[in-house]
C-alpha cells in the first residue's frame, strides 16, 4: 500500500519541484538581466492555464502522442532514481537502465515535434538528436567512472557507499563530476548548448507548433526531465539526501550553477558543440577513468 502511495506521490513532488525550479530559473536570470522577472510560482499558473485550454488544431496522431510519450519516459526514469528516502524500483544495474530510459522522454518530444510539419521544428529535432549524440559520450564516461569507483551499478548502493565512507563522490572523483556537469548543461538544454531551441535561428525549434494543453504537457515534461537529471547528479556525486528537503537543496545548487552559466554564455553552433563535447569533456573523462583504475 505504501508502495502504491509512493508511486503517486513521487511524480507529484517531482512536477511541483521541477516547475518551481523553472520559476527560480526565470527569476534568477531576470535578476542577472537587471529585470524584476515573474513571480517564482509563475510556471504553476502558466501550466494550469495551458492545461485548461481546448485544442482546436492538430497535426496528426504523433503530434498529440509526443508529449505523452515524453512524460511517460521521464516518469519511468524517475521511478528508478532514488529521491531522498523514496527509492521505488531499486535493483542491480538500474544506473545502466536509467541511461537508456532517460532518452525515451526526449525521443517522444522529437517524434511529436517532427510530426508538426514545420521546417523549424524538423531542424530543431535534428539538432537535438545531434546534440544528444554529442553529450552521451562524455556522460557515459563519467558514469563508467562512478561505476568503476564504487564497483556497483545500483544507484542506491552508490549512495550507500558514499554515505558510509563519509566522502561524496564529487570529492573522490571530481573530474567525473565535472564531466557530468558539462554534459548536464547539454541535457538540460541550457546555454551554451541550447542549440535545439535557439529562438534567433529556428524560432524556438521543436515547440514552434505546440500550443494549448500540449504545450502544458510539454511544460510538465520539461519539469520532470529537469528533476530527473538533477536527481541523478545528486545521487551519483552529492551522496543523495536524507529527506526530500536536503535533496532538493542539493539539486537547487547544481541547477543554479547551470542557470548562472546559462545567463552569461552565448550559444555554440552545432558543429562547435559537437567538437567541444568530443574533445574536452571526453579527455577529462578518460583522465578520470585512468585515476579510478590507479
Amino acid at each position: 500500500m505504501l508502495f502504491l502511495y509512493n508511486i503517486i506521490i513521487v511524480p507529484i513532488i517531482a512536477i511541483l519541484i521541477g516547475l518551481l525550479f523553472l520559476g527560480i530559473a526565470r527569476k534568477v536570470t531576470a535578476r542577472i538581466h537587471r529585470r524584476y522577472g515573474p513571480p517564482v510560482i509563475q510556471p504553476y499558473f502558466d501550466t494550469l492555464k495551458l492545461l485548461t485550454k481546448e485544442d482546436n488544431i492538430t497535426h496528426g496522431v504523433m503530434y498529440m502522442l509526443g508529449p505523452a510519450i515524453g512524460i511517460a519516459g521521464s516518469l519511468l526514469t524517475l521511478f528508478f532514481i532514488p529521491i531522498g528516502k523514496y527509492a521505488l524500483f531499486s535493483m542491480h544495474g538500474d544506473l545502466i537502465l536509467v541511461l537508456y530510459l532517460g532518452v525515451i522522454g526526449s525521443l517522444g518530444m522529437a517524434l511529436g515535434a517532427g510530426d508538426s510539419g514545420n521546417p523549424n521544428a524538423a531542424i530543431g529535432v535534428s539538432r537535438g538528436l545531434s546534440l544528444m549524440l554529442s553529450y552521451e559520450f562524455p556522460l557515459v564516461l563519467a558514469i563508467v567512472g562512478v561505476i568503476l569507483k564504487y564497483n556497483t551499478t545500483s544507484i542506491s548502493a552508490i549512495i550507500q557507499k558514499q554515505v558510509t565512507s563519509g566522502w561524496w563522490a564529487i570529492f573522490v572523483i571530481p573530474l567525473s563530476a565535472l564531466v557530468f556537469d558539462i554534459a548536464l548543461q547539454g541535457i538540460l538544454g541550457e546555454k551554451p548548448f541550447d542549440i535545439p531551441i535557439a529562438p534567433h535561428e529556428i524560432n524556438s525549434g521543436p515547440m514552434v507548433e505546440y500550443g494549448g494543453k500540449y504545450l502544458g504537457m510539454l511544460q510538465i515534461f520539461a519539469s520532470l526531465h529537469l528533476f530527473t537529471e538533477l536527481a541523478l547528479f545528486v545521487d551519483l556525486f552529492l551522496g543523495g539526501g536524507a529527506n526530500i528537503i536536503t535533496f532538493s537543496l542539493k539539486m537547487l545548487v547544481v541547477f543554479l550553477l547551470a542557470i548562472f552559466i546559462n545567463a552569461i554564455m552565448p550559444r555554440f553552433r552545432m558543429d562547435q558543440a559537437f567538437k567541444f563535447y568530443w574533445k574536452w569533456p571526453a579527455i577529462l573523462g578518460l583522465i578520470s577513468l585512468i585515476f579510478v583504475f590507479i
Partner: protein
Amino acid sequence: MKTYELFIGPQHVGITGNFSVILELEGNVVKKATPNPGFLHRGFEKLMEMRGFIHNVPIVCRICVPDPDPNEANYAMAVEKLLGIEPPPRAKYIRTIVLEFSRIASHLFTFGGHAGSIGLYTIPNWTISDRDFILDLFEMLTGGRVYHIFIYPGGVRRDLPDGFIEKAKDVLNYLEKRLDDYNKLYFDSYMFKKRARGIGIINKEDAIEWGVTGPNLRASGVKADTRKDDPYAAYGELDFEIPVLTGGDAYDRIMIRRMEVVESIKIIRQALDNIPDGPIREKVPNPMRFIVPPGDAYVKVESSKGEYGYYMVSNGKDKPYRVYIRGASMTHGIHILEKLLPGNYLADVSQIMFSLDVCPPEIDR
C-alpha cells in the same frame, strides 16, 4: 541533396525589424537567400512631395526608427542649402550632441541585437535599459523619447534646458563605466570571438564595389567617414578619430561600433564643454508660406548605419518637387545580404543580419 525553403519573416525573432528573408537551404547550409522587404512601405518620398517643407520634418524621422536624428539633420541641411542659409554655431553644436547621442543609442541597440542573435540574452536587456538613460536626455531636451522632431531647417527647435549639460555628462560617465561590464561579458568573451570571427566576410575591394558605407565599410579596412571627409554640423571643429579595422567579418563589424561609441562619448564631451552662446535659429520663411528658391541639392550625413543622402529638387513652390533618400540599409539589407548569406550555416544567418545593422524602413522609403 534535396533543398528546402525556410521563411524568416517579420515575426521571426532573428530578424532586424519589419523585413523578411526567404532562405533556400541544403541541410544546414544556405544555398540562396532572397531578401524581401515591402512590409513597411509608407511612401515617404511621395508623401513629401505633397506637403510643405516645414511639414515634412515630422515625416523624415520615421525613416529610421532606432536612429531618427540623422534624417532630420540631413533634411534640414538640404533645405538650408537650397535656401542658402547657415544655422548659427550654437544650433550646430546642439545638433552634434543630438546626433551623437542618437548614434550611441542606435549602437547599443545593435549590440543587443547581435548578442541576442548568438544567444547571449543578458546583453540586450542591459543595453536597452542603458539606452533608456539616453532617451531620458532626449525627453528633457526635445520632449520626445523616440522621435524627436527637433532639428528644423535653420536651426533647432529648443535651447538646452537648465541642468542638461550636467545630466548629459553623468550619463556619459555611466555609459563609459558600463562599457567595461560589456567588455567582460561580451566583447572580450571567448565564445563571442568563436561565433563571430570569420563569419560573413566582406573584403576591401568588394566593400567599395558593392557600395558598403559607414561602420561596415570601416570594418573592411577603408577609412571613410562623412563626418571627417565632408564635415557638417560642428564636426569640423571637434577632435575625434575614425576607428578602422581590417577583418571585415561579423566580429569586426561589432567591434568597430564599440570603438565608435567611445569616440562619440569623446565628441559629446567636447561639444558640451565648448558650446558657444548665441541664437539657436536662423531666420527662415514664414512656416505657412515656406517658399524655397528653385534648384537642387544633395547633402549627405553619417548615420549609425552608414552614409545617408538626401537629394532635393525644388521648383520654387512651397512643396519640394522631389526628394530622393539614399538609405544605407538599402545596400546592406538587399544586395550585401544576398551575396553574404549563401554558404553560411543557418545558425549564422541572424548574426550576419544584425552585424550589418540593417534598418528595414530605410529600404522601403
